């Protein structure tokens, strides 16, 4: 439509097209923005790894049983590898925010359970309660934690578990 005699017009149209192209890049490279948290919100995160107790206790082998084993495999106790599932319940101000039963990973169900939960909560004062049952051999929860907390807006309240100290807030 525009031959060589219309080169200036063609360059003008090209500039227009490039402007549209760049405007698209400029806009979508940063916009529209997304809001992750409201001004008065914070986040609670449960993040830790934990190995449940053995599902069955170790059993002492009899002399007869030991005698049947090859000499290099004779151990006084037989410990089944399978671990208990880990049940965790977390509630904030009496409202359950997390409740899961996590099966141990691995072919023999003997791995460490990975606990990760992250959720938004209103900033301010709260009452946090966490319970964990990591043994099928005991009735009820094996670890419990209760604490009044204060969370500032945009902060992450990180809950960890240490086998020695129990639940720890960081």
């Amino acid at each position, binding site marked *: *439509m*525009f031959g060589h005699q219309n080169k200036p017009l*063609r360059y003008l*149209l*090209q500039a*227009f*097209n*490039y*402007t549209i*192209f*760049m405007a*698209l*890049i*400029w806009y*979508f*490279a*940063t*916009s529209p*923005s*997304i*809001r*992750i*948290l*409201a*001004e008065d919100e*914070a*986040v609670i*995160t449960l*993040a*830790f*790894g934990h190995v449940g107790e053995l599902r069955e206790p170790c059993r002492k082998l009899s002399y007869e049983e030991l005698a049947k084993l090859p000499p290099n495999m004779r151990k006084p106790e037989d410990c089944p590898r399978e671990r208990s599932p880990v049940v965790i319940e977390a509630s904030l101000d009496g409202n359950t925010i997390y409740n899961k039963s996590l099966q141990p*990973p691995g072919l023999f169900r003997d791995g460490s359970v*990975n606990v*990760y939960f992250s959720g938004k909560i209103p900033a301010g004062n709260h009452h946090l309660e966490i319970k964990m049952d990591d043994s099928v051999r005991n009735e009820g929860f094996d670890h419990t934690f209760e604490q009044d907390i204060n969370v500032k807006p*945009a*902060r*992450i309240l*990180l809950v*960890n578990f240490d086998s020695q100290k129990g639940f720890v807030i*960081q």
Partner: protein
Amino acid sequence: MLVNPIKRAYLALESWFNISFGTEWNPLYHLGTLSFFLFWIILVSGIYLFIPFHGSLAGAYESVEYITHDQWYAAGVMRSLHRYASDAVVITVLLHMFKEFASDRHRGFRWFSWVTGVPNLWMIVALGITGYWLVWDELAQYVAIGSARLMDALPLFPGTMTRNFVAGEMTDRFFILIEFLHLLGQPIILVFMLWIHVKRISNVEINPPRGLAVGTFIALLALSLFKPALSHAPADLSTVPQELNIDWFYLNVYPLLDYWTEGQTWILTISITLLLMILPWLPPKKDGPKAVVDLDHCNGCGLCFEDCPFDAISVQARTDGARFDEEVVVHPEMCAACGICAGSCPSSNPFRSSKTELKTGIDMPQLTVDEMRTKTGEAITALDGDTKILIFGCEHGLNVNRLDRNDTKGIRLICSGMLPPTLVEYALKKGADGVMVTGCRHNDCFYRFGNRWLKMRFAGDRKPILRGRADRNRICVHGGSETDKKEIEKDLNAFRAELVKLNQADVTSSDKLN
């Protein structure tokens, strides 16, 4: 004629770019090479940025701030070029896919290029995502946690990656791993994937026309100066950023994680990928019969091998004991059945075997060169009027039979590139006043090079050439799609008027001689 609305929309866009850029610089004809050019910008700017960049958790953000603000005139511009060229690649790749889909260039023999192309898009996105990590600002933190959540949801991973991003857990080792992936691992894999993607095409071009490259670079440079790329606040794993300006070209999947589980997000992503990958078979397309070599008429010159746009022909040592050294072989699984090889074969000469069936070295079973010659003869016999015009058109452009009238007849070919130049000469000699050839729009042949080779053969720049004795004034080539009937008719009428003048001039000169 009905043209599907997606193709019509694409052709309208293409027409607009033809008006503003011309067919030589039309970016829609160079989306692949334009993407390569953008990769060059990304590579060069990336190498420059690597020098002042500090690849550690503690130093990354500060070094990027230095790049952006202290050395804004050089490294800052490079950073912006790096980001905006990366964004531009997503647009060119998506347009490339849209073009191939809209113009039905993703099915049949093209399935391989389409299927191997889809993962490239994801690899480019993955490369962009790891790039955003390296700034280690709030956006990087958001991307890192989102990516880790997605990875943890896959059964292949132990599910502990997200825990790396809680306060105090993140280590330099993980950061350096991401750096290695972005700088070396992913680019190498991408280059390998691109190599696979173009495996079934020949004469692969990687550089766009200089004018288009210069224009694109100037536009990116202007954007980089006008709106430099900036970072968010530094990453802080004990807080959550409240608002983020995300790059929607690369990070569009992450906001979904606020509404969906990781599993649902994966299902959506995998479903889109699978849908894209099975598109060539929705519905399947059957290609025409493949090219057939007739060794009795093949001297192994290799012209068809050079002209085949899809690498479907190879040359090997002679197997039939003939006196020639080589012969050509067609690989049917790669053959597009376009017939360009028949047009390139020197044996496809209609002046040969005028009394018997015309056999050529390589031919198309669905439309042999002999049939083309017969149709040409019949059409010329049927022409009536002062200006007898024969029009050769391809199956993917305008149906030339729609232009038929007493003095104008159309013959449809598979591709305009299958027209042997000698057939044009033959038509003129047999009584046609003019020959018009129309195919796809210039530089946009359905079979990649059909109309380009045709023009070069007519100009004497590519074998087999149109011989000098063929009067160029009586030959008209017009590239146009099926929606360009008006433009083709306009050219045809102008050609007809030109032929009237030529005929009158011929009568006058022959009167003078008498």
